[in-house]
């Protein structure tokens, strides 16, 4: 009996050690990549970066102000497309999700997760840019929204499925209509997890270049309207990073750091908005 317990103890320590080992292993690339970006980018950070427009080669100064604003606007557009459709689809799949149609939706979301971002860009190009005969921020936002859709849908579904039935039953037992139970009780309980899904999607969307190449194009100027090309951080980073100029490289790394920082801020904001005291967990 004692030896069986010893064995279980040993297994426990081993397993926990393995988890810690996994964390340490994951920390290696994490620290390496984040450290690399920070090291290369911190030198280029300056107030100008946030406020100036890009300068041509050879002229020092210049910044990514328009690209930062552009990325925020594009992400905002993408969220207005991706979040409603994604969350409501996730709700549908979780609460009403046993029909053949629901299986089809789930399957579509999974397959869409695997579509390369450039294919989404080309799709939106054919649909929106060619119809409008111009590149536009709108097209870029739509492309990013489609990119975000599968992640938000599936994480919403999975997190809502985990809300205990007891909560639903309690609501129904009180006579609250089912739709109200879902909106006020279930969604609210699942909000932190849904926020994670949304933030993961936003993080990806904010950093993608390919979907924007053919849709929002890029611009040297401050954004003025949604139906014109708009600057964005990932494309500006890409353009500068692939140039031969050391000065532009430095700015590209600083912009990459800026992008990471922006997403981190958005992440923290999302966490604060969905903060719940740890009750029931």
């Amino acid at each position, binding site marked *: 009996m004692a030896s069986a317990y010893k064995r279980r103890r040993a297994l426990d320590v081993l397993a926990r050690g393995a988890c810690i080992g996994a964390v340490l292993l994951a920390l290696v690339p994490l620290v390496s990549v984040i450290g690399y970006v920070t090291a290369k980018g911190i030198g280029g950070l300056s107030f100008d970066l*946030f*406020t*100036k*427009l*890009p*300068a*041509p*080669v*050879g*002229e020092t100064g210049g910044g990514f*102000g328009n690209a930062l*604003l552009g990325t*925020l*606007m594009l*992400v*905002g*557009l993408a*969220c*207005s497309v991706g979040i409603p459709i994604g969350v409501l689809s996730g709700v549908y799949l979780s609460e009403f999700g046993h029909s053949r149609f629901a299986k089809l939706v789930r399957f579509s979301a999974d397959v869409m997760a695997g579509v390369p971002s450039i294919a989404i860009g080309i799709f939106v190009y054919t649909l929106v*840019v*060619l119809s409008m*005969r*111009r*590149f536009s*921020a709108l097209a870029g936002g739509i492309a990013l929204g489609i990119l975000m859709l599968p992640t938000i849908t599936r994480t919403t579904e999975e997190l809502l499925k985990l809300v205990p039935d007891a909560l639903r039953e309690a609501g129904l037992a009180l006579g609250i209509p089912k739709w109200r139970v879902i909106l006020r009780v279930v969604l609210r309980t699942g909000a932190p997890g849904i926020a994670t899904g949304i933030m993961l999607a936003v993080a990806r969307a904010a950093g993608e270049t390919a979907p924007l*190449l*053919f849709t929002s*194009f*890029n*611009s*040297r*100027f*401050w*954004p*003025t*309207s*949604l*139906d*014109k*090309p708009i600057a964005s951080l990932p*494309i500006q980073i890409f*353009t500068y*990073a*692939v*140039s*031969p*100029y*050391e000065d532009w490289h430095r700015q590209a790394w600083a912009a990459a750091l800026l992008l990471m920082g922006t997403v981190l801020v958005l992440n923290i*904001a999302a966490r*604060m*908005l969905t903060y719940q005291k740890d009750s029931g967990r």
Partner: protein
Amino acid sequence: MKNTRNLLVFMTLALGCSGAPTPAEPAEGTPAPSPKEMAAAAPPEAPSNIAIEGAGATFPFPLYSKWVAEYQKIDPRVRINYQSIGSGGGVRQITERTVDFGASDAPMSDEELQKPKGKLLHIPTTLGAVVVSYNLPGIVGLKLSPAVIVSIFSGDIKTWNDRKIKADNADLKLPADPIAVTYRSDGSGTTAVFTQYLSKISPAWNEKVGAGKSVKFPVGLGAKGNEGVAGQLKTTPGSIGYIELAYAKQTGLAYASVKNQAGKFVEPALEGITAAASSVANNMPDDLRMSIVDAPGDAAYPISAFTYVLVYDVQTDATKGKALAEFLWWAVHEGQAQGPALNYATLPPELVARVEQKLHSLTAGGQPLLSAK
């Protein structure tokens, strides 16, 4: 707490929606724009800004971005937005007319010229070169003859101390290491120029591999973009690859002198590139589409190439068309002085005369856009 949160949500949404069209105030309300922008955004009495969109090749992007900034000082109304999405992208967008001008390293083929509705003009704007760059610690001044280059990239010559390489480089101590070939994995004008050169000097290469923006290289590893090749070269001793001159110069990679048609080993310096262009300037076809690889002349660097701007000869918008024509006129005259500092070669004078003719032929609404100069 809940009310604060709702307020925050509302504000975030409102901020997101703040991108709604506000054409009247382009630069206000956002963090301090530069003085140049303020001037351009609030002209006292002149007509509003002329926004011109261009797309295409990555090779001339640094020069074009310098040009549009300089030109904006001359004519503040003109706001040109050029983005590098690739030569093929440039050709496609100008064909679809989603941009006002395109840019391509390789001239369009006859097949491609069938597609646009309207006649597209090729305007050569500047020159560049493809250099053969290598990473051999301690070795500089490598000389390569055409046959050797073909053999290396075909995989026939496998090590650095091969006698064929030694034949041209008796003074260098070449190691016995294997040659690691690097090529471009993405379609590019650089590959097009390089393979055009190889095809021209080697019928065997033409037969086996051919020329184009994207070809099936017999050996080697592919890297994405000039910077990818440069990066791979820098981190891999014993490697060789082809990149734009500017990348070799800026990253400090060594590059080889190549033997030209006249039998001289020429370094890819700007004079050599311009020399290549001027030696063929008089033989250029009317539409100015021409490859200048393996050009004749003692001083010519054999792997040089033009880059073109693509415009429709009949412009739909007279104001935009005039601004574009005047910008291009400036670019091939005063603008050329900006080139050398950025590693671009200037157009030879004989060619500028031909380009002037082309620019005079641009019209809108039946009227030529440029007054006879």
